[in-house]
């Protein structure tokens, strides 16, 4: 088994996809670092070199003023209200949620890339894992070996798991390493609040507790990895079902982007919450943001994703072992 996985890993490395992905990340991170840096600078210019409390208070008052305007969408009002109470809570506990530093950048970067960027990168690796063997014809060679089919597929799946871990790790390392040049490498012990529960447009704070930033980041990366695994599994299934890599990519791309769009407009269509792509934003539950659809929670989203993932896994294995190869 180990040799099979090793073989698959070798194939993956030969394709140089992992390097491409690392390159993409290494190119994007400086871009975002610069954007973030500009924002901080801009804020400093506007507000003077002020205490973060003053800045945060100013933001709170601005939000309050927006809320008091009557021409504001209900959706947006809910979002603002929740953010407002959260900021207030941070202020009361004397915690600056945005103290600049490489760990903070990492956190913000990963929170923003969990629903689209990272799944896309995963897709690039996984999409042709099986389909390329079918379209290239190498699948016949692979299956003539005296190894059970499910073991071959499992070795591919394990190789996928390893490379996803690798991608997530390189996101962590690169975003920390590169942004640290600008923001400094400190800030791992900064306290952050988690455990907010959103109910309607109220923010419940009874379970809120403080965790150091390193734990917070580790938790978020765990969730990111989970999301990537689910997206990976679904792509894997499509890769088994379809021969054309382009079709796999197209379907995954369409559903991921549809998810990003849907999340902004499904609030009144309740059953949309059973789609896997509206549930990708798991980190929002840790940081306490408003959910796209009422009644979603971390447990709910993780279960929905798990169901999709398991279904994808089963379909992939059943089809692969039963299919006629010719």
């Amino acid at each position: 088994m180990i040799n099979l996985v090793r073989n698959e890993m070798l194939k993956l490395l030969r394709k140089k996809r992992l390097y491409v992905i690392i390159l993409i990340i290494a190119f994007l991170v400086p871009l975002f670092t610069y954007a973030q840096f500009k924002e901080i600078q801009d804020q400093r210019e506007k507000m003077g070199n002020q205490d973060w409390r003053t800045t945060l208070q100013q933001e709170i008052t601005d939000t309050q003023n927006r809320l008091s305007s009557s021409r504001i969408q209900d959706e947006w009002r809910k979002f603002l209200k929740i953010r407002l109470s959260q900021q207030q809570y941070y202020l009361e506990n004397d915690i600056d949620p945005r103290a600049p530093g490489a760990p903070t950048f990492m956190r913000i970067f990963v929170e923003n890339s969990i629903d689209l960027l990272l799944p896309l990168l995963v897709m690039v690796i996984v999409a042709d894992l099986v389909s390329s063997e079918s379209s290239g014809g190498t699948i016949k060679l692979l299956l003539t070996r005296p190894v059970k089919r499910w073991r071959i597929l499992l070795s591919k799946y394990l190789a996928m798991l390893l490379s996803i871990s690798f991608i997530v790790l390189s996101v962590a390392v690169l975003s920390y390493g590169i942004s640290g040049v600008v923001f400094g490498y400190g800030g791992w012990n900064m306290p952050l609040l988690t455990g907010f529960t959103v109910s309607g447009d109220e923010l419940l704070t009874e379970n809120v507790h403080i965790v150091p930033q390193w734990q917070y980041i580790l938790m978020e990366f765990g969730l990111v990895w989970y999301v990537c695994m689910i997206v990976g599994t679904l792509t894997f299934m499509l890769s088994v079902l379809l021969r054309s890599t382009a079709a796999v990519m197209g379907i995954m791309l369409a559903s991921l982007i549809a998810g990003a769009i849907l999340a902004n407009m499904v609030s009144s269509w309740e059953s949309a919450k059973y789609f896997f792509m509206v549930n990708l934003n798991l980190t929002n539950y840790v940081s306490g943001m408003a959910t796209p659809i009422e009644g979603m929670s971390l447990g709910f989203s993780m279960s929905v994703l798990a169901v999709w993932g398991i279904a994808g896994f089963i379909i992939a294995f059943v089809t692969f072992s039963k299919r006629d190869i010719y």
Partner: protein
Amino acid sequence: MKAVLKKYTLTVVSIVSIAATVLWLFGLGWTLQDQFSTNKKVSQFKEKTDSTSTEKQDGTLTIFALGDSLTRGTGDADGKGYTGYLTERLKEKTDQDINLLNTAIKGETSRGLLKQLQQSEIQRQAKQADVIVMTIGGNDLFQQGAALENLDNNAINGKKQIYLSNVKKIYTQLRELNPDAVIYHVGLYNPFSNMPDSKTTSSIVRDWNFQSAETAAGFNNIVYVPTFDLFQLQVENYLYTDQFHPNTEGYKLIAERVASLIKFEQEENES
């Protein structure tokens, strides 16, 4: 050689990946444990709180603005409001850096302001201030321009009593937080002074202003700044299209008046 390198890379990547998998699984497990177990409390994180600087910064003049939409600047094309123009004016007069903290909220009533003043951050900013400017009462009296259609004396008197007792508490609170800064409470004008009922409305506003000024007089260093006269004639030229908030010109008038008072204060200090 190349093959050896390949093999080496493969081993490294595999080992790193396995380690990463363990790490992420651990993170995921921790999330579950952390998010689904209850009854944790925000632990004693308060220790560090007192490092907060409540000292006044030397060399900068901190203006702390609070109140309602007038202080916020509703109706001004540039969104600055009188606080913005006030800062501009003062900048011309002094070399000091001016730091404006505006915590005004549109539609704020005296009750809301009193509540806002209980927030620790607002209190901290109030302590830092060298000058405090505020507007309050407009929403108590007019309720967004609607209430004055009902000119019933009793109803207005009732509102006035509530307002006055709130304002007294606000003054007391501000004085407790910051005994030194001069407080400029910008008074009300009558936005309806070109309407048919202007005689009645004006007398209500005048009385309101008088009572407020009387309350202010009970405290040290609280200046009730009149604006009634500024808007008395030609009110239509100084109002925004909502016929309630001042426009840019109106805000400039208010700013000028407050600015002249602040300047006087500083000259006296210097001599």
